[in-house]
């Protein structure tokens, strides 16, 4: 059995989530090939060759894949798929974008966002915002799978696989990249951080998010937000944790001024330890919090920062 895993990267660094996706692929059992498709991405291929459990890295370096547009990526992956039984990508926005397109081109169903592997054809995935867990068997000959990285532990990176260059150019010519507007941050990536502190509507405005920054700096934490905070314009949407935002499962999640709606819990309830700071003792967040403190966040946050 052979598995093709598509690497998540930004043309310069391999994303940490790929290491967890490789772990999921290992659980499926088989020979793993890691595909690095991008532009000027030799450094990513070098990093990919060190990933344990990977027997070969395919490097496809062409301007057509610079922004990993779904139209081009899906044609490339579909062409390569002939040699593989499983096609696996990380359920981040890039993978979510092109993988269903691959599945449709191969005429197979896709199993999205798996959190566990039961066997080579049976996977576990959350549905209904994580309020139910489905065990799903794929009946297709080829399996197209996206992996929720927080469900798996990263593999180590001290291996040395061979890198094979392929020069397949797939350019659908139907779409083009115009611009990126990326959020600059010194803090750890939200999806990969071991500590996350998030603010909700209770923060009242964007300036007050600075109250979280001092704590985040002391703990080395990433800062997240609820949908209410994003919709109110306090912070940009890429900070949103929840069913429709990012799924996180850090060691410590601190929810500040967040009531704990179903859609928010879907994105963080697998965190190891949850702390809630809220002045409403009835807030649903207290039902999942390991440690709760009923207090005004404007008193509690400065005090917490000073005590860390």
């Amino acid at each position: 059995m052979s598995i093709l895993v598509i690497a998540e990267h930004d043309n310069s660094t391999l994303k940490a989530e790929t290491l967890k996706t490789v772990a999921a692929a290992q659980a499926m059992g088989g020979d793993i090939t890691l595909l690095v498709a991008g532009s000027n991405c030799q450094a990513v291929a070098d990093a990919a060759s060190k990933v344990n459990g990977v027997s070969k890295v395919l490097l496809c370096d062409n301007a057509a894949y610079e922004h990993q547009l779904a139209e081009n990526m899906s044609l490339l992956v579909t062409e390569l798929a002939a040699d593989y039984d499983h096609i696996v990508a990380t359920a981040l926005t890039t993978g979510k974008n092109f993988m269903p397109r691959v599945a449709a081109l191969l005429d197979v169903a896709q199993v999205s966002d798996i959190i566990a592997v039961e066997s080579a054809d049976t996977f576990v995935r959350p549905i209904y915002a994580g309020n139910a867990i489905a065990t799903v068997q794929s009946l297709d000959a080829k399996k197209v799978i996206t992996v929720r990285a927080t469900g798996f532990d990263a593999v180590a990176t001290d291996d040395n696989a061979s890198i094979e260059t392929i020069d397949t150019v797939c350019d659908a010519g139907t779409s083009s990249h115009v611009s990126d507007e990326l959020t600059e941050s010194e803090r750890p990536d939200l999806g990969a951080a071991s500590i996350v502190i998030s603010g909700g509507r209770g923060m009242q405005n964007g300036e007050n998010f600075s109250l979280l920054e001092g704590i985040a700096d002391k703990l080395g934490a990433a800062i997240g937000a609820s949908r209410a905070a994003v919709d109110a314009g306090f912070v940009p949407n890429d900070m949103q944790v929840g069913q429709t935002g990012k799924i996180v499962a850090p060691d410590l999640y601190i929810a500040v001024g967040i009531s704990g709606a179903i859609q928010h819990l879907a994105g963080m309830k697998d965190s190891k330890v949850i702390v809630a700071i809220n002045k409403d003792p009835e807030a649903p967040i207290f039902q999942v919090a390991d440690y709760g403190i009923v207090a005004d966040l404007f008193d509690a946050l400065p005090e917490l920062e000073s005590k860390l």
Partner: protein
Amino acid sequence: MKVLVPIKRVIDYNVKVRVKPDNSNVDLANVKMAINPFCEIAVEEAVRLKEAGNATEVIAVSIGDKSCQEQLRTALALGADRAIQIEAEGELDSLNIAKLLQKVVEEEQPQLVILGKQSIDSDNNQTGQMLAALTGLAQGTFASEVKIDGDKVNVTREVDGGLQTVALNLPAIVTTDLRLNEPRYASLPNIMKAKRKPLDVKSAADFGIDLSLRTKVLKVTPPAEREAGIVVETVDELVEKLKNEAKVIS
């Protein structure tokens, strides 16, 4: 330009679902159903394109049993011009839905298809991309802004690191993110008017597509319950617990 908006009837987003005791699925009997929130945003965007003079006709389509006509009427009340129900019983997966929608696209020849990025029940996030693949059209997924620009559409997408803008040749497929717009409420006069708008019913079986499921749900279980935690009185106590009991900070 014609805009096609596929919509889905799902459990209302505020309802806490219960898993059936036999672990076959979640219990949807007597549960409040509604139009999927992302689909509502898709309808709103299509109606706004029409109001801005970019679209001439908005067609809502839904696949399912007769009950999804209720959601199609909602879409008509929100401003869609006509609706199509594709009558289908039982479970369908995203690929089946995409194949049926492909037939509708071939028949109606819309310039733009706007779908929600995911349904809040199955959480698959697949149908729009699959439809784009089957029709060979470009896709702009997770859209937070849609701008028609001649024979192209510029779509600003919500991606992990921020925003990305792509230009797509028309016709194209767009899937909506929550930030795209704020859907309007249907007024009572519009709800009344919607009752007289055309709603065609077609049978999924007539399309001659193999709609067998390629995945089998073996079981559905409730998620692991988190144990109830404790409420601490002071910030000092909180820091102490995190350091010494939970050992998550040093």
